[in-house]
């Protein structure tokens, strides 16, 4: 029996959602915050090093 594309999708919809839930968005958001804050801390660190070198 040949299924149309919609029927195929329909049959797999539950499976698709189980796999492609939006958990990745949560990981991405957490990673962005982590990287962003670390980036700012590294900049602060560099600023401090510069001041230390001046003396």
């Amino acid at each position, binding site marked *: 029996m040949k299924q149309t594309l919609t029927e195929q999708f329909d049959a797999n*919809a539950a499976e698709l*959602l189980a796999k492609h839930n*939006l958990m*990745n*968005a949560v990981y991405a958001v957490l990673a962005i*915050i982590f990287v962003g*804050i670390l980036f700012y801390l590294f900049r602060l660190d560099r*600023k401090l090093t510069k001041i230390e070198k001046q003396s």
Partner: protein
Amino acid sequence: MNLKQHWYKWVAAVFLLYVVLGGLFLPLKPGITGLTPVKIVSGGVQTLKINVYNAPWLKENAFKDQEIGQGKFQIPSKVILVAKGAPGRWETQKIKFSGDHGQLLADMDFTMGNAKVSNEYYSVFIELSNGKYLGLPDAIYLERAAGDTAGTTAYISKSSAHVNSDREIFEMSFPNRMVLNESVRNLFYHVPMWFAMLALLGMGCWYAIKYLRFGQLEDDLFADSLVRVGIVAGILGCVTGATWARVTWQSWWPAADPKLNGVAIGMTMYFAYLLLRSTLQDPFQRARITAVYSVFIFPIFIALIVIMPKLSPNSLHPGSGGTVGFNKYDLDSTMRLFFYPAVIGWIALYYWIANLRFRIAKLKENKLNA
């Protein structure tokens, strides 16, 4: 370490650990995510396919447990269709389970016969063995077939029992919403960025006033650090928001949203603050002018990102412009249990970073003067 002086650092560490772990590992409530077909013409038995996310009956031993009568797990016992305008309901107990991912096949007899049933949008409910319900509002449209006007009827015309999908008992799980799905957890990471930004800019405004009142350069330096770290929080809020919007609103930056427009203008005002500050050399002149500017733009910023979206006729953001806030989804307050600590924790963390930046700036100032 002196606890009195460092308390907010511990608050940041403990609260954020709790929020990140809890926010990632607590499960989502089960919920109906879709239904086919979406339109049915009455007459005869038809099969509804209902997709359920995090279905409780997929857990190991769910059915065995049911036979023993422990009822620890919930399995579906009925599928019910109810409409707001209709006096009765359609229901069936002929339920089959399909696949490993929580799909239900419900055979339902839609013979209207001589029952007085109007064409309606129906909400779908799955009754679970412990008396609770999973629901999806206005999911299916039922229309009377031309020939289906006389004879027997499968419609239960007596008023249905009150179908209530609220859960009274306390469960540690997050609400399951159609579009949001698992990304509802971003409430603990994206939203507190803005709370932290507002808190830091507000404190920056306070220290700017303090500088104008007492003329201490230290107050100006601290105000500047608060504003700069507040801007970092705001940028992270923008980027995380864009990521979240991409998967739920299908656009990185839906320009029709009044909150996004407000933020775009507001952030530009604060970028102008950075520009203004970098052009002035004399520390006292710099402090005075930027303090006045900071005091001037903070209320405008509040108006742009808090007040204007609430007044606007429509918005994608929850809780503004006629949309429902997250507090309406959070029936058992599990989200509040993480959201409030998240706000406090993120504010404490950014305040800590602002404090570090202030101390570095002070060191630099002392070096220049020496």
